[in-house]
């Protein structure tokens, strides 16, 4: 208590208490305090406004996030509408009710064909078994809707190791006409297992010049290296000298001719 002012006030307190407030002051203050007591405290009032302001920002941000999420997952807001919406409408009408794939020829059932003798222990198990009765081999080989069905049919022929004129004709047609290169190559592979058959050699010689798929042509040329056949020799010369032949096929043809000492 080194403060001189405080000491002075303490020592002369009586001198400061000379004046008394008017009697109505206390009553008036009490009446004023009563309604204020019902109102919120000024301190709390100060906090209310900023809180509401922040909440407004949060609401705005939530709306923005919701909009963005909607745009992100649906995109209708920014989707460019087609000039011809009929395309969509027509397709919608044909949507199957379930998510299952549409019915298509079953290749897997081909593995269960009873006519095939099991020459080798490993049985070709190709696709999912869904249809009880397998379609005939010729039908599956001509199935234009699925390249895998045709490929599975060819692999089945390969597995059976059986060959006759009808099968040779079917395989030859597949090798030359099929729309899928992989299927053509598989047919060529099966035919190449029967090079001792003169009919197969003749078919390969013909196919070499008429083939329109360079990959298959390349495969035939490589197989031709194993055959000493006049028709194939002429076909190789024809392919090698054709300016429109695919470069790799041409190189391969020259290589085979050199290999066979025909050049």
């Amino acid at each position, binding site marked *: 208590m080194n403060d001189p002012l405080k000491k002075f006030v303490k020592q002369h307190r009586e001198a400061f208490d000379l004046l008394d407030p008017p009697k109505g002051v206390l009553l008036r203050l009490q009446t004023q305090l009563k309604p204020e007591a019902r109102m919120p405290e000024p301190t709390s009032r100060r906090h209310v406004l900023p809180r509401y302001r922040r909440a407004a920002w949060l609401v705005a*941000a939530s709306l*923005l*996030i919701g909009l*963005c999420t909607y*745009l992100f997952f649906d*995109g209708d807001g*920014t*989707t*460019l509408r*087609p*000039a011809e919406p009929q*395309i*969509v409408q*027509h*397709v*919608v009408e*044909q*949507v*199957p009710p379930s*998510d*299952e*794939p*549409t019915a298509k020829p079953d*290749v897997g059932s081909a593995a269960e064909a009873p006519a095939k003798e099991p020459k*080798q*222990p*490993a*049985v070709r*198990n*190709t*696709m999912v078994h869904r249809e009880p009765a397998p379609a005939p081999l010729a039908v599956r080989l001509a199935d234009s809707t*699925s*390249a*895998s069905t045709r*490929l*599975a049919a060819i*692999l089945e022929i390969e597995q059976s*190791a059986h060959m006759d004129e009808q099968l040779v004709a079917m395989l030859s047609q597949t090798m030359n006409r099929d729309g*899928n*290169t*992989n299927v053509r*190559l*598989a047919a060529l592979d099966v035919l190449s*297992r*029967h*090079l*001792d058959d003169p009919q197969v050699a003749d078919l390969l010689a013909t196919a070499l010049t008429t083939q329109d798929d*360079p*990959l298959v042509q390349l495969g035939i040329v*490589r197989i031709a*290296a*194993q*055959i000493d056949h006049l028709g194939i020799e002429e076909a190789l010369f024809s392919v090698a000298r054709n300016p429109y032949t695919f*470069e*790799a096929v041409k*190189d*391969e043809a020259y*290589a085979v001719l*050199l*290999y066979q000492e025909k050049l």
Partner: protein
Amino acid sequence: MKRQTITLALLLAFCLPVWAQKQYKVARPSGKLYVNLNGACIEGYAGNEIIFSNQGVPDEEDERAKGLQALSSSGFIDNTGLGISVAKSGDDITVNPVGNSDRSDVLYIRVPHTVDVVFSNNKAIFADTLLIKNMKGEIEVSTSYNDVVLENNSGPMNIKNLYKNIEATFANDIKGPVSIVSVYGHVDVAMPASTKANLTMSTGYGKLYAAGDFNVAIAPKALDDERSGARLAEEEARAKLAERLDSMPDIVMSAPPSSGTGISIASMFRGGIQENIEGTINGGGVDLILKSTYKNVYLRTN
């Protein structure tokens, strides 16, 4: 206030790619989806719509083109706003390019995973990578210049590539037949070690590789009676050729043949012996055909 401004800016930044993205949707077809584009990312999902989207940076809008329709010598009309034509033909849906597209503009196609997909691109030299993943339907690919990447597809599939590589990763649910063929590119396939398959691998000028975990049981060629005659003739011819080559001076090649440019006859004679392996993995199962004419074929576990 500063924090709120930053939050708003971040939200707007998040929204910008969404606004830039264009989409076009069609209901799933009862037939196949034919895609004839320079490249695409095709992803399967559990839904009923085919969703085409372009997630690249949009080109500046040509003010002069407002109100006009893009024409193409191909005859297709851009009915999507994505530079492609999507048209229904019978039960199928066909996608074709309209005019020249920006190469950085990759088209994403989300497809119900059971739909069959056919991709074909044998004309465009400047082609993008083709990515197909998570599909359970049949896949057909015929391309010349696209690198092909296949991820987590079940098959069956027929993949042909003329000049580029093919890489495929399979999960456990493989459905055959699976045929993957490339002429000038390598073929690289990864699948679980427990996969049961009938395997055919071949290469004309490359090498064949397989992970030891597969324990490939190679069928002995001696049992193949029908080809023995041709094989004996081939072996005789090879022996004769080797004798002839030994008498010739060594051929020194300045550089190995590059893909797409053909191959010299000299290298053919030195290394062009057809490698062809047929066998089974884990007792046999789905048919798996992997071929490359000039490059290696790899079969690995994943």
